[in-house]
């Protein structure tokens, strides 16, 4: 495993090593002293393992493709935003907009995620060991958001076809988000995601939420609301 000391080489120094795909492909890296800096291990585009020893700032692992990124600490705003594939794992809590707009891959947050977790998610699977804040899965289009704790206000507001699984309490559901029946195929999918995430939770304790699909088309009866 190669060791990169961010305090010595800076964010650009770290990222330029990881972006040199001819050398970094299929290798393992350890990043020391992340010091809460932004955009660490962003835009990776090959299979590699990156372990970050501490707390990171904004957009860590953003736009990730294929790489496995382990953050041992807290993740700032927009962790794994717009991830395409691969995995980002946070051992601590995460700030707002975790996994925003992500198209694929797996984001695991062992602690709590803050507000707007999975906002506009487009195919990513997100597993949160703790709770999520308000407006999570806002306009979520595709993918699965698994919340082992509670969800804050307005969960799934204006949701499209993403599927939300919540084990704890939901403070309130957003517009057009409803509870749905947990069928066998959902139980199977949830079990599979939980297993890959390595977070321990019993799939039978979760409830499923998704779109009522009443906002898809303009309804003349709603005209007064505008």
């Amino acid at each position, binding site marked *: 495993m190669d060791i990169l000391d961010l305090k010595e080489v800076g964010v650009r120094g770290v990222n330029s090593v990881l972006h040199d795909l001819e050398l970094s492909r299929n290798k393992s890296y350890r990043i020391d002293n992340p*010091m*809460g*800096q*932004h955009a660490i291990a962003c835009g990776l585009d090959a299979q590699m393992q990156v372990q970050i020893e*501490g*707390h*990171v*700032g*904004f957009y860590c692992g953003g736009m990730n493709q294929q790489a496995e990124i382990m953050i041992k*600490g*807290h993740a*700032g*705003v927009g962790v794994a935003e717009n991830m395409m594939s691969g995995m980002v794992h946070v051992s*601590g*809590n995460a*700030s*707002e907009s975790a996994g925003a707009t992500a198209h694929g891959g797996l984001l695991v947050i062992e602690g*709590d995620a*803050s*507000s707007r977790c999975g906002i506009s998610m487009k195919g990513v699977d997100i597993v949160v060991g703790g709770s999520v*804040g*308000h407006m999570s899965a806002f306009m979520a289009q595709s993918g699965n958001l698994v919340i082992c704790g509670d969800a*804050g206000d307005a969960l799934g507001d204006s949701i499209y076809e993403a599927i939300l699984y919540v084990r704890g309490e939901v403070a309130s559901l957003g517009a057009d988000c409803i509870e749905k029946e947990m069928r066998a195929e959902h139980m199977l999918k949830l079990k599979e995601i939980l297993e890959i995430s390595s977070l321990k939770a019993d799939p039978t304790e979760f409830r499923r939420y998704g779109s009522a699909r009443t906002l898809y088309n303009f309804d003349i009866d709603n005209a007064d609301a505008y």
Partner: protein
Amino acid sequence: MCGIVGLYLKNAELQSQLGSMFKPMLVEMSSRGPDSAGVAIYRNPVESSQIKFSLAHSNPGFLWETLGTNLSASLNCEVSTSTVASHCILITDAAETEVISWLQTNYPEVRIVGSGKSIEIFKEVGPPEMVYEQFDLEKASGTHMIGHTRMATESAVTTAGSHPFATGADLCLVHNGSLSNHNLLRVKLEHEGITFQTENDTEVAAAYMTWKIRSGATLRQALEDGINELDGFYTFCIGTQDGFAVVRDPIACKHAVMAETDDWVAMATEFRAIAHLPGSDQAKIWEPEPSTIYIWGEQ
């Protein structure tokens, strides 16, 4: 933009290191606010019969000792002054309101940047590191500090518009965001006898909290009422003589992160400001929730 930072020491043994612990926090937020910076430090509380003013003058050669002598003669009171760059810490046993009206009459160009028993406020135009160094804060001891780095986007780069804002009673406030009902609230507070030095929205928030506390509210009650009455976007970090608080508006879209160890509590716009503190790698770190009051010290 703008960056805000706050540090409250839980372990009294660290008080002699407050200034050196706080410096890298403020400097790290320079990229969010390179125009000007301000800090409030709580230290050296005065006697119960005394009051401490933080004053500022745009002329660096201004003779604060003369102002002190004149104040002493006019109000027949004890006055001590100590000059710190463009600022002065003035301690007197005269009544606060009399001193304020005397200053407004005789020295209208002097800005009262803070007052109370232990608060001292310093703010100046320039890069945060330079501002911090010119007020000799690196070796400062104290209990808690609050700071602001400013990127002026809608008004001039002046010290008057810089945070922290204080309107008396040891309370000060730094703000990331913007308030939308500050004009209405300013008029209401002016009816309550509060005077304002700027058109700034943050000064209204500080004045609101001061007014509440002077009316007998605890810091927590003042903040609870603030959530109901202040409209807009805000992450506030607030200091009082014994207290330290953080509160965000119900939407909570202005960045904030908090960290706590057995020794200290810190808040910042971005975690990288906190990363410099000893023990930050083992701290409990979280994003403060909307409409939730986080408070240490005073309840």
